[in-house]
């Protein structure tokens, strides 16, 4: 006799017949408005964090969303990860709308879509050991025995290049790059299909960034993952993304394949962004 949750899961899994190349995630007309303003006066400032955003991400591909601070990239990420409710619009995941789900379906979605944030120091609980941190999602979703969970957590750590011997150490003993790997391991432990990286590589040293990029590409191939990579660093994005969408003030102003965008940027803002990336030519 299946539990209700198990039935819901298997129902959803039955829709999982998408092949490589079909859009895994689709967004249409997404809007998010914040009201800011004084209480009793009529004047209310409506801040449009997202304004009619439309995207689609093919399975097993990487879409990068670039833009400056305040462009709305993080808001988009949070809406997709269902941490925030959009004011209007549609979000489709594997052909199912993410916006009106039952609570069991919502639970299932959390296993499919995971988020890695920018600052690993604040995202990791310093009172837990590394393996406990990675195993936490398993605990929340009630999976397996304690030993299974530990084993799965250590496997996830190995996948991200961390030695299992470090499992019992506190995250404070890890360097910045290693902490980010830990955060990544935690995101991977449930076996998600869609990973949202919100400035996950910002603040890392260059050699660490390069290592992480290689790691992410490797994991994407081996686990058939789809990435949404949010960054303000165009150089980084050029190496990891299949398609790039440029955001400004809540709107997507340009969206094309990476090579197309870098070789032939159409919007003047995109051109400006590309021009501002420091290159390794000496001008001194």
């Amino acid at each position, binding site marked *: 006799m299946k539990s209700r949750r198990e039935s819901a899961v298997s129902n959803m899994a039955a829709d999982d017949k998408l092949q490589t190349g079909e859009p895994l995630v689709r967004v249409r007309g997404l809007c998010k408005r914040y009201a800011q303003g004084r209480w009793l006066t009529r004047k209310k400032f409506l801040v449009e964090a997202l304004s009619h955003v439309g995207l689609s991400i093919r399975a097993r591909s990487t879409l990068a969303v670039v833009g*400056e*601070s305040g462009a709305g990239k993080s808001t988009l990420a949070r809406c997709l990860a269902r941490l925030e409710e959009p004011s209007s619009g549609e979000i489709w995941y594997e052909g199912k709308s993410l916006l009106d789900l039952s609570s069991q379906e919502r639970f299932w979605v959390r296993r499919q879509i995971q988020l890695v944030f920018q600052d690993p120091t604040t995202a990791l609980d310093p009172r837990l050991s590394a393996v406990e941190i990675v195993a936490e999602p398993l605990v929340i979703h009630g999976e397996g025995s304690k030993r299974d969970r530990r084993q799965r957590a250590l496997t996830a750590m190995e996948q991200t290049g961390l030695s299992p011997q470090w499992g019992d150490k506190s995250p404070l003993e890890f*360097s910045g790059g290693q902490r980010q790997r830990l955060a990544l391991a935690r995101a991977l432990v449930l076996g998600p299909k869609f990973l949202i990286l919100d400035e996950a590589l910002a603040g890392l040293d260059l050699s660490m*960034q390069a290592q992480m990029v290689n790691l992410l590409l490797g994991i994407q191939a081996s686990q058939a993952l789809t990435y949404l990579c949010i960054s303000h660093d165009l*150089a980084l994005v050029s190496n990891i993304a*299949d398609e790039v969408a440029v955001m400004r003030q809540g709107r997507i102003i340009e969206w094309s394949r990476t090579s197309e965008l*870098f070789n032939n940027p159409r919007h003047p803002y995109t051109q400006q*962004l590309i021009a501002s990336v*420091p290159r390794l030519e*000496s001008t001194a």
Partner: protein
Amino acid sequence: MEQSSRDPLLQVRGLTVRYRPEGGTEVAAVNQADFTIASGEAVGLLGESGCGKTTLALSLLRLLPTTICDVRGSILLGETELMGLGESQLRQLRGATISIIFQEPEIALNPVMRVGDQIAEVIRAHRPWRKRRCLDEAGALLDQLHFIDANRIFNAYPHQLSGGQRQRAVIAQAIACKPALVIADEPTTALDPTVQSEVLTLFIDLKERFQIAFLFISHNPAILAKVVDRILVMYAGRIVEEADTTQILRRPLHPYTTGLMRCVLEWGDEGAFRPRRVLPTIPGSPPDPANLMQGCPFEPRCPERMEVCTAREPQEVQVEISQRVRCFKYGG
């Protein structure tokens, strides 16, 4: 690079900074650093996190707490030996002769004081002028820094400004008394790309206009390439290579520098985009300064390591007139 035509402004010899953390082993965050900065010259310090660059910067201003840090060596500013000065004499130099800009502008500004007042405070600390005059000077400074609405910025509080505006306010504070040397510790790291390039242009402009010498610290060689004339490469507390910017870009000597240059994610020639590929990296991670083994600190990650690299540390070798390196490949 005619270094001989400029007077040396800062001469650092044998600078060593040891940390004594509570209950831990002594750690040398900076080890025997030797370098010279001429007046009006822009020098870059290239290194990754944990290499000791911020410690070096703080030690130049003697800002490290004496209870936990032990600083040895010689720091000669013009004719004055900074190591022998007392706290009040140092305070006269800080902000007026040597200034420092820290990494994150949001937290470098006093949240409950207006920006204009904060800049005026620095002026007031070093000039015997009345408050009104200091405020006027601060206003004039903001005008010179290409602020579009300098008046609003002057009267605003830090939290009302954008990241780029805050960083420029911090820069205004640093140059308020027209110092001879400004140390900038990763000043553009926390900024958006377009703002970043504006701030870098500002630095170049300031160097030209006021003849200020810069020590520009960054982990990104591409940023340094835009701004500085000479680069010092730092690894595990040691300066492992020093050369002119053009030399380093064309022919980096130290294997670490070579590796780092390759890590800069770049496009191909003529701006043509290169498709996704496996990136060259430096394997492993920077060493823990508390656990350094004998020999060259880069040896565990070095693709060109030799027998002698584990035996002892390499000495400095002058490869060309303006290029020095600490690596057994070239002798040492």
